């Protein structure tokens, strides 16, 4: 089976079979990562550019490691040390990079649709590593993988996504991915951080955290930024923590064997208490581990797949 797609721009519209293929392939790569020698020659001769227009720790290192473990050649680009500072447009930048003969572009950009714009400019495969508040498909896929690994299923799983939904690409990609796989998703957060008509994406909306958590298997906690207070969307982070912060007390309403997730970076003591983040039900670090395997699977599938994998 093939992915039948040149790019990975988002999970909106992605078919169940395609997601399953990525998750199944991820399983194979995770197994490779557990071996004493974690490197395979699968992408030897493939050149990848990591184009980061926004700060990133996890996603960037995760992609780099995935590329290295597949034996790909990689080049890192960050906006603050490049000709972007001299006023070069995104189109010129990617056209120039492509002229140096590359195969895959991994892009992180603050503007929604920037990866789609790049995909229209170049022949290489494009992977969206996060575009503004639009999508972050590799994060959602690693979240799906982490959940499937634990529960052996995604269908019927009851998931609550809590926090700043308005600005969250992780929330959007997870909503598409989880609902496609048959999970039951709700979102919860202050009304000022809830995007217009989000329920049309197939989720229930709560502003009461206790109601949202009632009978849920999984809580995805999103990062809340101080900036939201300054821009008039929140009275204070203190009030946010009191109303929407995930504390041990709140967890009582969840189903047995529940799971706590967070895409990072954490604001300990703001959206999540340290004891919850580090609790036995937290899979926050598993998410990070699975990120590398997921990205290996995606890179492999986009560069043809099926050929050299043992």
């Amino acid at each position, binding site marked *: 089976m093939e992915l039948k797609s040149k790019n990975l721009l988002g999970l909106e519209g992605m078919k169940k079979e395609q997601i399953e293929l990525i998750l199944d392939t991820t399983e194979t790569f995770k197994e490779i990562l557990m071996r004493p020698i974690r490197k395979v020659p699968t992408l030897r001769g493939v050149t990848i550019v990591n184009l980061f227009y926004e700060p990133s720790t996890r996603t960037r290192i995760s992609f780099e490691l995935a590329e290295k473990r597949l034996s790909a050649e990689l080049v890192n680009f960050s906006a603050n040390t490049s000709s972007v500072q001299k006023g070069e447009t995104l189109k010129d930048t990617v056209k120039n990079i492509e002229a140096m003969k590359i195969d895959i572009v991994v892009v992180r950009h603050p503007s*929604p649709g920037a990866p789609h714009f790049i995909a229209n400019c170049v022949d290489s495969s494009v992977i969206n590593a996060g*575009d*503004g508040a639009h999508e972050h498909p590799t994060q959602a896929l690693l979240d799906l993988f982490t959940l499937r690994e634990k529960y052996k299923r995604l269908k019927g799983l009851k998931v609550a996504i809590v926090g700043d939904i308005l600005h969250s690409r992780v929330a959007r990609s997870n909503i598409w991915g989880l609902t496609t796989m048959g999970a039951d998703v709700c979102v919860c957060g202050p009304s000022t951080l809830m995007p217009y*008509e989000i329920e049309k994406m197939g989720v229930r909306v709560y502003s009461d955290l206790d109601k949202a958590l009632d009978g849920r298997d999984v809580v995805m906690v999103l990062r809340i930024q101080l900036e939201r207070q300054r821009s008039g969307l929140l009275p204070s982070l203190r009030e946010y923590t009191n109303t929407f912060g995930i504390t041990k007390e709140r967890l009582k309403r969840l189903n047995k064997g529940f799971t706590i997730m967070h895409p990072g970076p954490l604001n300990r003591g703001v959206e999540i208490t340290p004891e919850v983040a580090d609790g036995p039900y937290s899979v926050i670090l598993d998410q990070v581990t699975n990120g590398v395997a997921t990205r290996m699977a995606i890179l492999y599938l986009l560069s043809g797949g099926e050929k050299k994998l043992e």
Partner: protein
Amino acid sequence: MSRISNPEYDYIIACARIIDPESGLDKVGDIYIKGEKIVRIETEKLVLKKKKSKKANSVERIIDAEGKICCPGLIDIHTHLREPGREDEETIYTGSQSAVAGGFSTIFCMPNTQPPIDDQESVNFIYEKAKLAKCRVYPIACITVGRKGQQLTEMTDLKNAGAIGISDDGNPVSDSRILRHALEYAKMLDLQVISHCEDLNLSKDGVMHEGFVSTVLGLRGIPSLTEDVMVARDIKLAEFVGVKLHIAHVSTSGSVELIRQAKKRGLNITSEVTPHHFTLTDEAIKSFDTSCKVNPPLGTKKDVEAIIKGLKDGTIDCIATDHAPHSIEEKDVEFDSAPFGMIGLETALGLVITELVEKKHLSWIQAIAKLCTNPAKIFKLTQGKIKAGAPADLTIIDPKIEWEVDPSKLKSKSKNTPFRGWKLKGRAWMTIVNGKIVHKLK
């Protein structure tokens, strides 16, 4: 066509379906033109039939317009011609070429140029450049100096120099006190004020309509409220001052309703809508197409339906393009970084016919009224009617022709249109300004 001197006429537009909303005329006939004027309209003894029967060989001074529609020259009260300042995107000359190709014989240009048209000298500059233009070009001048919303422009001077109206288009006059005084002052001068209704706090950082599509795309939304609250405010201010007011580019169902109610109360509020706002919705942005990035933003199906209803019942008086040229470099960027605006002079008529007339939302006479008669009335122009003695500004429309929009063939210097590849019905076949044929479709 040679111009042989003749006591009665220079040439005849023969056998066209003449539609003149002003007089209610809708009949096949001949229009006689002499010099810069219409001299006679003949609906009984048609020259072509007479000549054909007599096998006359002298048909040189006859334009055979059988099967075509001849209406008053179209008037676009809202264009951006970018001169002075961005002549790389459009000039008064190229804008006028685009206008006549689209069937417009008169266009108004907005003052948000660099520098803005906010003094007498700038108005004179536009008229100086307009001497070479293919059509009539009337400048709209600023309400406030530099479009900054603080100090009133010298409106007496502007009016004396020939400003057809005043607007800070592109910006609202945010300070209600300043707008109040601007309306009072303009009333004294009988100068038409055109409002760009946008609450800048509500639209801050927004790049598209706030709705389900912006939610999915993660693009920052501009709520409909942005326009609605300012339309409500401006109507109240105009009512208080007791002055007429024209609302530019209406785009939301809410503001259509506010204008409808204002008119019902007997206020002299007029309004316009662009072809893209009755044709497209925010769904068009799903592919992050920057040519669909406009201000006010493309709304939802509900807004389009309300606009069409407003056009039908007369709430919306005019159709204006908001022709906004932008260079390829400026538009070929990430959606967030692209400027707002699309060109429209050459697609407007085709969209009116395809989307409104063909779909039976408007009759021909209604559609034409919104493209010339009503604009002429609001701005007190002598053109905009077909009548003996009136200026010979005429547009001959081929209502049956089907054509595909090819940006490379458009006369506008800029190519930022989302209608690339669209198949439209109806097009300007000939445009006549002051008796002179300035466009003929090949």
